[in-house]
């Protein structure tokens, strides 16, 4: 029997076959999934910030796009995923509040998305689909049997990507 595995903020987990990996209420954060379609192994990390380098309080690798993706990749390989088969899907990176100010932190969703894509590119992990940006929250579910990522919102519909 598959399990529904919940992943909190700045956290990660992996699953197999009919497991479902889910993270609830993504705002400016990004849910990054990796999937091996042959071994049917999936992984999800819920990152909050673009880079671990600029910050003192950086002991948790799952908090940052750069270290989070590397960390998830390692875990996937440990479980027997084949690196050459891995594909990635990402969702989140919204801007929940709009301000006129030039305050950088308010554009954190956008910066998270850019950092995530750069890191995936650097690691040669193909990004096959994404649902990024907007001004609304998302709940996502990765079905490890099929690799389908379901994105649910309030008032902006449900998508399968």
């Amino acid at each position, binding site marked *: 029997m598959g399990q529904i595995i919940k992943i909190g903020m700045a956290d990660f987990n992996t699953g197999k076959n009919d497991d479902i990996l889910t993270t*609830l209420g993504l705002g400016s954060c990004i849910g990054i999934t990796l999937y091996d379609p042959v071994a049917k192994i999936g992984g999800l990390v819920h990152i*909050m910030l673009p880079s671990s380098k600029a910050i003192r309080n950086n002991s948790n690798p799952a908090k940052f796009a750069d270290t989070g993706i590397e960390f998830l990749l390692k875990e996937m390989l440990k479980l027997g995923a084949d690196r050459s088969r891995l594909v990635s899907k990402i969702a989140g990176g919204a801007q929940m*509040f709009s301000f006129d100010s030039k305050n950088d932190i308010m554009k954190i969703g956008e910066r998270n998305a850019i950092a995530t894509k750069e890191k995936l590119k650097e690691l040669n992990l193909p990004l096959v689909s994404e649902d990024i940006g907007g001004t609304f929250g998302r709940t996502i579910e990765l079905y490890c049997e099929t690799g389908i990522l379901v994105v649910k919102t309030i008032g902006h519909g449900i998508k399968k990507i």
Partner: protein
Amino acid sequence: MTISIENMDHMQMDVLKEIGNIGAGNAMTALAQMLNKKVDMSVPKVEILEFKEVVELLGGPEELVCGLYFRFDGDMAGNIMFMFSLPSAKLLTNLLIWKENNQIQDRGDLDDIERSALQEIGNILSGAYISSLTMLTGLNMKLSIPSLAVDMAGAILSVPIIQYGQVGDKVLLIETEFHQEDKDIKGFFFLIPDLEFYDILLKSLGVLDNGSNN
């Protein structure tokens, strides 16, 4: 060393809680004046919580809630956030714009007038909070206009969590319940200070010695 919620001593914490109480009291008085109605308030609960616990208080990460976000700059800087459940937000706006009771539904978004009313109420509440800080400390701060979001609690809270996550994982939360006639409205107020905020605040109140082990 910079003072943060994690490394504050008891006295400093009490000062912070007391400021929270005063701020919430002033905010409520301002609201009652604006509505020209009697508003009763229960003693606000001031707590230091982890963000995770805050999400649970609000009913879980997927719960539909209203968030109002403000920025303040000046001698001290940071952000303020109010959160209300959707039914509480609707009750609150209806106090101001007076709809017939009963059209208040549990679910469903706010309309434009309700949004605007809620932002105005947010202005009053945060303005009163900031001016009580100014009164106590003599420091000047300027408040931005509010930004409103109605969405999943987890998504809305991700904004202060990210902003604050660079400093720590705990937050000062003030939970107030107020009653207008038979209506109960519950609101949450967070202060998300920039680095140095507590140093400046506590120093101005004389509860932080210059130099000593800080």
